[in-house]
C-alpha cells in the first residue's frame, strides 16, 4: 500500500500540529459559539456555510490539497467497498484526529468496523478529542471560527443505521445544521439538550480538570481496532508494570475479539505476547505533541508528560520509528535517539543544576571554615578564653 508510507514521522508531526491548532481553533470556535452565532453564518465573510461544508483543513493551512489526496484516496477506495456513497469526499477533514487518520490507512476492516460497529464512537471520540483537548478558556475568541473538525464528525456519522446516533455534534456551531444536507437526517443536533454556554464551559473545564486535577490524571487510551476509547487514571499506578497489566486487562476484550478465531482460551500469556510482542506497541503523546514509546523515561516523568496513549499495531508503527514485525531494530535507535534528544535538555539542565549546587555548597563550606578559623585565631590572639 502506498498510503502508509505517507504516514512518515514528518507527515504525522504535521498532522499533529495541524490537529492541535485545529483542536485549539475548534475549541475556541465552540467557545465562541455563544458569542457570535449570528456572525458565523451571516455577517462574517470569512466563514460561510459553503466554506464549512467543503473545508478540509484549517484556513491558511499548508497544502490542504495534499491532505485531501492523502486521505481522500483511502476514502475513495473505502467508499466503494463500503457502500459509503453519497458523501462528498471534500467533507472529510484530514488530520482531524490522529487516531482516526491512522485508522483509515487503508485497512478496510477497521474502517468498516468503526463505521458499522456499535457506534461511531471511535471517530466521534476522535472528534471529541478536539474540543475538550483544546482546553482553551473562552477568553480567546478569534472570529475566524473553524468548524472543519466537527464537520468531519457529522459526515462520518452518516452511514450509520437509521437509529439515531449518540451526538457528537453539539460541539458544532449551528452552522453545521445547514451545512451538510444529505447527512442531516441521520445526525443528532442539539442532543443531549444542553445550552451552548454550558457545553463550552464544560469543554474547557474538562480539559483543565483532566489534566491537572489533584489526585486524578485521566488520559485517553485508544487501541487500534477497538470500537471505543478508554480512560485511565495514571495516578492510580506506581510503575510501568502495574500500568501495563491494567491496560492488558482493559483491552483484553478487544484483542480477544480480534483473535477469537485462534481459540477461546486466550490466556494471559498470549495476551502479553500480543501486547509486548511485535503485534502491538504502546505509545503515548507527550506535552509537545510528539509520539513516544512508553517505557523509556522514568515513571514520574512519564505521568507528567503523557497526554494520551495509543496501542498501535506494529505494522502501523513504521512511521514512528517503532519496531514492527518487518522493520526490526532499524527503527528503534531512531526513536531512542529522539527520546534522548528530547530529554537531553532536561538531563543536561539537571546536571548543570547539580554541579552548580555542588560548587555553591562547597564554597559556602570553605567560607564557613575560613571564618571559623579566623575567629579561632582571633580568640587565641586575645590570650583570654571566653567563659562558655
Amino acid at each position, binding site marked *: 500500500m502506498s498510503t502508509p508510507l505517507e504516514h512518515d514521522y514528518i507527515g504525522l508531526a504535521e498532522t499533529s500540529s495541524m490537529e492541535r491548532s485545529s483542536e485549539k481553533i475548534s475549541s475556541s470556535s465552540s467557545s465562541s459559539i455563544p458569542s457570535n452565532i449570528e456572525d458565523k*453564518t451571516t455577517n462574517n465573510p470569512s466563514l460561510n456555510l459553503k466554506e464549512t461544508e467543503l473545508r478540509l483543513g484549517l484556513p491558511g493551512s499548508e497544502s490542504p490539497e495534499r491532505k485531501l489526496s492523502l486521505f481522500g484516496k483511502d476514502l475513495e477506495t473505502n467508499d466503494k467497498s463500503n457502500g459509503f456513497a453519497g458523501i462528498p469526499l471534500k467533507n472529510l477533514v484530514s488530520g482531524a484526529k490522529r487516531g482516526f487518520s491512522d485508522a483509515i490507512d487503508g485497512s478496510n476492516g477497521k474502517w468498516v468496523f468503526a463505521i458499522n460497529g456499535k457506534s461511531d464512537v471511535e471517530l466521534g471520540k476522535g472528534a471529541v478529542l478536539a474540543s475538550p483537548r483544546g482546553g482553551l478558556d473562552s477568553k480567546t*475568541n478569534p472570529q475566524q471560527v473553524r468548524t472543519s473538525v466537527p464537520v468531519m464528525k457529522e459526515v462520518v456519522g452518516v452511514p450509520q443505521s437509521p437509529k439515531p446516533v449518540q451526538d457528537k455534534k453539539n460541539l458544532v456551531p449551528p452552522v453545521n445544521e445547514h451545512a451538510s444536507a444529505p447527512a*442531516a437526517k441521520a445526525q443528532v443536533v442539539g442532543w*443531549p439538550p444542553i445550552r451552548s454556554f454550558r457545553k463550552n464551559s*464544560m469543554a474547557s473545564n*474538562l480539559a483543565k*480538570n483532566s489534566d491537572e486535577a489533584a489526585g486524578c490524571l485521566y488520559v485517553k487510551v485508544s487501541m487500534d481496532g477497538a470500537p471505543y476509547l478508554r480512560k485511565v487514571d495514571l495516578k492510580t499506578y506506581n510503575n510501568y508494570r502495574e500500568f501495563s497489566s491494567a491496560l492488558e486487562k482493559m483491552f483484553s476484550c478487544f484483542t480477544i475479539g480480534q483473535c477469537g478465531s485462534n481459540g477461546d482460551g486466550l490466556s494471559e500469556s498470549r495476551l502479553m505476547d500480543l501486547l509486548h510482542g511485535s503485534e502491538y506497541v504502546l505509545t503515548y503523546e507527550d506535552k509537545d505533541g510528539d509520539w513516544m514509546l512508553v517505557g523509556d523515561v522514568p515513571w514520574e516523568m512519564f505521568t507528567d508528560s503523557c497526554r494520551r496513549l495509543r496501542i498501535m499495531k506494529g505494522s502501523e508503527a513504521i512511521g514512528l520509528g517503532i519496531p514492527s514485525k518487518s522493520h526490526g531494530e532499524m527503527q528503534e535507535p531512531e526513536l531512542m535517539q529522539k527520546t534522548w534528544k528530547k530529554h537531553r535538555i532536561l538531563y543536561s539542565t539537571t546536571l548543570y543544576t547539580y554541579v552548580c549546587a555542588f560548587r555553591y555548597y562547597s564554597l559556602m563550606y570553605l567560607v564557613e571554615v575560613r571564618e571559623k578559623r579566623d575567629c579561632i585565631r582571633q580568640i587565641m590572639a586575645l590570650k583570654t578564653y571566653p567563659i562558655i
Partner: protein
Amino acid sequence: SSRRSSFPDEVLERVLSLLKSHRDRSSVSLVCKDWYNAERWSRTHVFIGNCYSVSPEIVARRFPKIRSVTLKGKPRFSDFNLVPENWGADIHAWLVVFAAKYPFLEELRLKRMAISDESLEFLAVSFPNFKALSLLSCDGFSTNGLAAIATHCKNLTELDIQENGIDDKGGSWLSCFPESFTSLEVLNFANLSSDINFDALERLVGRCKSMRVLKLNRSVSLEQLQRLLVNAPQLAELGTGSFSEELTFRQYVELESALSNCKNMHTLSGLWDAKGIYLPALYPVCTHLTFLNLSYAALRSDELAKLLAHCPRLKRLWVLDTVEDKGLEAVGLNCPLLEELRVFPADPFDEEIIHGVTEAGFVAVSFGCPGLHYVLYFCRQMTNAAVATIVQNCPDFTHFRLCIMNPGQPDYITNEPMDEAFGAVVKTCTKLQRLSVSGLLTDLTFEYIGRYAKNLETLSVAFAGSSDWGMQCVMGGCSKLRKLEIRDCPFGNAALLSGLEKYESMRSLWMSACNVTMNGCRLLAREMPRLNVEVMKEDGSDDSQADKVYVYRSIAGPRRDAPPSVLTL
C-alpha cells in the same frame, strides 16, 4: 335600571393592583366588562410567553400603565441549535412602541429574544426611569450594548446577563458606570468571559450599598473576591469567580473571614474550577444556604460530601455528574429539605466514560429527600424499577426531567422500554406540571401520559414513540397541556391533526424531524386560521416533508418578519 357595581372603580382597581399573578389577573379580566377595565388599568406587569402571539400595539392599547414587561421569543429548542439563524423574535419593534406608550417603563426581562446593540442603546436613552434589565438566552448583542446601558441608565437597579449569545468584546463596559451611580442591587455578568477592570468593579460594589446579588465572571480571582466581599457583606446571592488560584494561608484566612461576614447569603454559585482544598472557606456561608449551584465546579464525590455536611438547609442544588452516585448519596444524607436537584453532565459527548451518575444516585437522593419536587437528571443508564422507587419516595414531583443521554436506550437491566418508568411517574405524581422523557419509549408511555397526567403543562419528547397513536393519546388526554415539543419521533400528519381543537388553548407546538408533511401543515393552517403554522425547511430536504413545524396561537396574525427559511402557511 342602572346597574351599580358593588365597589367604586377606584377601590376595585386598588384591590386588583395587589394581584400579582398574571393568571389570576387573566381570570379577573374575564368576569365582566367592569372588572376587565379595572384590571387593565391596574396592571403594571405584563407577561408575554410568546412574543408573536400578540403585537406591541395590542398590548399598549389594552394596558396603559405597564411598568414591567417579560417577553419570551424563540422556541425552547433554539437553545440546542434547532432553530435557524435570524428566525426572528427581535425586540426592536417592541421597544419602539414602548418608548411611545410606556415612557415610564422600568423593567424588561427577555428570554430567547434577538437584541442588537442599537436596541440596547435605544433602550438606554428612551426610558429615563429604567431600572431592571434581565437577558436570558438572548443573542445578537455585544458588550457595547451593555456599555450603553451602564452609561445612560441612571436609575439602574438590576443588570442580569445570563447565558446569552453575547459577543464579548472586552470588559470595559463595567467601567462605564458613572462614579455617581449607586443604585445597583443586582449585577450578574457571570457568563461573560473577558477580564473586567477590577478597580472599577471594586469601586462600584463599594458605593452600591444596597447590592444584594453579585455574580462575577471567571476572570475574577479569589483574592479579588475577598476584597469585594469585605465591602459587601450584605450580599444575599453570590456568584464567585474562579475558585482555583494558589492562595497563601493568610489570604485563605481573609477569604474565609470575609465569607463568614456575609450573614444574609442564601445563594452561592460560580465556583469555577473549584479546587477541593479551598471549599472549607465556604463552610460558614453554607449553614444558611438554600441554593447551591455547583454546576461549573467539577467536584468529586468526597469533596461534595464534605461540603454538603455543612449545608443542612439546602433546598436547591445543581451539580455536575463528576460527583457520581456516591456524591448523590451524600446529598440524600445531608440535605433533607432538598426540593430541587439538577445534575448536569460534565462530559456529555464522551461515550466511553467511566463516571457520571446512574440510577443508583437518583434513588439515593429520593430516599433522603422526600420533599423533592423538581429534578433535572442527565444519566447514561436507568431502569424502570429505579424510577418507580423514586416516585414512590417523592410523590410530589412537579417537574420531572430525565435525560438518558443515549437516544432510545432501554432499561439496561431488563432491556425493556422505559414505558413503565414514566408510567409510574405520571400515575404517582398527580401534581406533575412538566415532564421530559427519554430512553426507549413506545406508544404505551404516551397512553400513560394521556391517561394520568392531568395537570401536565409542558411535555418534551425526543426519539420516542412508535406511531401516531402516541401523540394522539397525549393530545386527547392532557387537558392542561400548554407547550409540547417533539423531535425525532415517528409522529405524522394524523398525530398533528389530532390536536386541531387543542392548539388554540396551548401556547405552542414544536415538531421537528418527525413524519409531518407540508400537506398536513397546510391542512392545519387552513382549518385553524387563528394559529400560525410555520415550517422551517432544511436545505436539500424533500419538498413535501415539513422538517420543523412550529405552531402557535396568535391574535396578531401571521408575522411579517419571518426570514426566507421560515414559511408561514
